[in-house]
């Protein structure tokens, strides 16, 4: 049985101070003005936070919209549109008290409208409408309803208490007077191409070719951002984008292809800034397969792989080999657990210990059953490196007598095989986290089932109880200890062969200062950036 969450009222003293500050110029002494143009990978399809599903759009919506809560640079939840909140003892009711000083970006020839509880309820309703085209619906199915209590108070009722629900309220709020169709939102609604929000920047213009100009919102509730204009310029080709930076046609690249790092590194005009990616790649094993249910077999696979060699040759060494289930950028990651070394001899020993012996064809077998497995890989747009990784996997395992049959699958078909049919032995994939400390959905046994994230079917009472405990404790240090323990257990268990986190690099002209970068939303802290005069 789930224990009731002993979580109650949290009031952020700091937030009250912050909201008392007048909207207007910032008083941090940094200059206002200037502009930053950045290169973007193609034209975004839509610019609103509900229908969009691409990184390109996500970066823009980060500048134009706000959530009820935000996540700060230390990955802690902080107030945004909500100045404080209350969570009921049973963990089923979340009440948010909203800021009263927030206005929507005005449309041309229109006065700015105030942000109220109606907008929050509207956003939730439109997001969940079956006809709305959005990838977000699945994430918010845990909410039963959203109600307006008064103009500045909203109550969310949950269907069941879920762990770490607060982080889910980072969804961006859109205005009730935004979409032309108030019932549901499709990509044909004019709002998705010309959205208005509450954020630090408002959309000024979009050209037919996809160049997007954003200008500072003077009325931003956290104070006007320093940089006057931010421009997104679409590029079709990464090489050309790098050249554009070198010729000052743009000031920033949000994600530099490792291949072009040396060229930029050698140029004193630019800063190369690494930022944590809250993601990692892995080979995941299907525990439903009796051969893979034995942890010694999974460990053997990890020993058989030279992960550093793969990282060096396929990604120019731009990344970190990991040992466990958290992204290394996370506070929950346990640095004391070292990744297993490359040791094919040890791999063979482990397989023999598990009862396998080398057959006449060199393939390990046990009781007449060959250690022959299928590896299913989704076809991605940029799949060259992925192909090399899976072929290397196949070769490394061949050396220890394991036969791998690589099957590339179209994305949708792959998802069905893995998450619905559980028809696979091994998969290669990458997890991207919005909350780096929350791995409950990957390894908790309650998360086994169709379309749930524990596709591996991994079941371990110790892991379950560690996850539960970590979720229920409010003491940060205790949570850290629990997560470090969890990390150690999963590193030993090898439900996945954890591979690596790739290091992301942003490149920008050194005139841009105080650049802090969010792992994948990128612009979360852009209101504090400034341009040196």
């Amino acid at each position, binding site marked *: 049985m789930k224990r009731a969450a002993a979580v109650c009222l949290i009031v952020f003293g700091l937030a009250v101070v912050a909201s008392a500050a007048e909207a207007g110029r910032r008083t941090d002494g940094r200059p206002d003005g200037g502009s930053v*143009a950045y290169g973007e990978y*193609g*034209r975004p*399809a*839509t610019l609103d936070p509900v*229908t969009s*599903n691409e990184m390109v759009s996500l970066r823009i919506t980060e500048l134009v919209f706000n959530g009820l809560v935000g996540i700060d640079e230390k990955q802690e939840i902080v107030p945004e549109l909500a100045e404080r909140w209350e969570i009921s003892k049973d963990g089923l009711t979340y009440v948010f008290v909203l800021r009263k000083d927030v206005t929507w970006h005005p449309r041309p020839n229109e006065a700015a409208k105030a942000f109220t509880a109606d907008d929050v309820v509207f956003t939730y309703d439109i997001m969940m409408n*079956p*006809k*709305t*085209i*959005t*990838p*977000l*619906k*699945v*994430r918010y199915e845990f909410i039963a309803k959203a109600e307006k209590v008064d103009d500045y108070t909203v109550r969310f009722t949950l269907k069941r208490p879920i762990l770490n629900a607060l982080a889910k309220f980072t969804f961006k709020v859109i205005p009730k007077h935004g979409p032309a169709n108030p019932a*549901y939102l*499709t*990509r*044909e*609604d004019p709002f*998705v*191409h010309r959205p208005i929000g509450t954020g630090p920047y408002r959309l000024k213009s979009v*050209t*037919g*070719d*996809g*160049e997007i*100009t954003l200008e500072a919102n003077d009325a931003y509730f956290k104070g006007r951002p320093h940089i006057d204009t931010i421009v997104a*310029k*679409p*590029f*079709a*080709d990464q*090489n*050309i984008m790098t*050249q*554009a930076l070198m*010729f*000052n*046609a*743009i000031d920033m690249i949000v994600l530099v292809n490792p291949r072009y790092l040396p060229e930029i590194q050698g140029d004193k005009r630019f800063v190369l800034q690494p930022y944590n990616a809250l993601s990692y790649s892995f080979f995941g094993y299907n525990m439903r397969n009796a051969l893979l249910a034995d942890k010694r077999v999974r460990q053997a696979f990890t020993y058989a792989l030279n992960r550093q060699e793969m990282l060096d040759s396929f990604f120019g060494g731009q990344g970190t080999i990991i040992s466990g289930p958290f992204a290394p950028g996370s506070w929950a990651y346990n640095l004391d657990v070292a990744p297993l070394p490359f040791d094919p001899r040890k791999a063979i020993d482990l397989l023999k210990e598990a009862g396998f012996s080398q057959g006449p064809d060199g393939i390990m077998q046990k009781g007449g059953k060959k250690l022959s497995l299928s590896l299913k890989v989704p076809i991605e*747009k940029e799949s060259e490196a992925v192909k090399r990784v899976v072929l290397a996997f196949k070769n490394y395992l061949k050396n220890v007598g394991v036969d791998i049959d690589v099957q590339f699958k*179209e*994305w*949708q*078909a792959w*998802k069905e095989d893995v998450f619905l049919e559980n028809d696979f032995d091994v998969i290669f994939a990458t997890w991207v986290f919005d909350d780096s400390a929350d791995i409950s959905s990957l390894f908790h046994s309650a998360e086994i089932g*169709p*379309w749930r994230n524990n596709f591996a079917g991994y079941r371990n009472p110790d892991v379950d109880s560690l996850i539960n405990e970590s979720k229920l404790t409010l003491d940060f240090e205790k949570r850290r200890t629990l997560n470090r323990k969890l990390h150690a257990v999963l590193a030993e268990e090898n439900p996945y062969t954890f591979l690596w986190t790739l290091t992301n690099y942003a490149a920008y002209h050194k005139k841009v200062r105080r650049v802090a970068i969010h792992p994948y939303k990128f612009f979360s802290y852009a209101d504090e950036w400034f341009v040196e005069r």
Partner: protein
Amino acid sequence: MTARWIRPVARVLLREVAVTALLLLGVSVVVFAILGLAPGDPFGVLLEGQASADAGAAGVRESLGVPTAWHAQYLAWLGGMLKGNFGASIRTGLPVLGEIVRTGKNTLVLTLGSLLVTLLVAVPIALYAAIRGTNRISVPLTMAAYVVSALPVFWLGYLVLYVVMHAFGIFPLGAGFSGGSSGPAAVYVLLPVVVLGVGNGTLSEVVRHLREEMERVLAEDYVRTARAKGAPAWRHAFKEGFLLPVTEIVASKIPFILGGAVIVEQVFNWPGMGRMAWQAAQDRDFPVIMGIAVAAAVFVRTGSLIQRFVYVAVNPGASREGPARRAA
């Protein structure tokens, strides 16, 4: 004189338009069938695989007004198109026709410009070689035309960009940008046009075909007679030795030039139809793919129609025969 070619041209035109209509229908059926048979679904792309149940996808289809059965889907598309409604892109929600016109204009500038470049380079070489025969000038020129034609266009594009950027210090990509290009506007329009014109593989074929035809015509009795009478040979040789071969080869090469445009648009960041097609193919955005397929078919057909038109105008008797195409 004029009346002599109007009737035959009108007859041919009518026949060709009817053929074109059937052709477009065929193209749309084939493209649609390929899209239907290919794995993957645009709605899956839209939801990024997040709609766990079919219910989600059904809701999406309903709100987009897309029928589930493939034949109903095709008929709905066809019915819309006949009324001039190409539907809206599944990815961007924007009307397909508007997007095709917007990007099509850029592609048209690129392809027509590149055709002009091809002809400006190829025609003098071919004519010189035809008139003067094989000599110390025509041989290296023809060789050069062959070598340049054989270069892959994406490689040529990068090479030209590299030279312009590093030798001249100009960043030559401005198309689609409101600012930021350090070069003059002409540079960034001209570069891709020249690259495609030189590198699309048509150059050598124009040289070869035009030279052969011109040589043949110049050796014909009627030209020799004209020469003997002291009349300028080129006036007599022009129609058969120049106009026909050039229009023939250009018409037959339009599909290849369009194909090359996809690559050049990518390399030069040129916001044209080719890039849109590439994106749409990745997203299985069928209204866009269908729209582009139809637009490309119209484009190609228009090219061959113009060629037929010229052919019949030059030789009215050809209107009664079947399409008498000479092998290029």
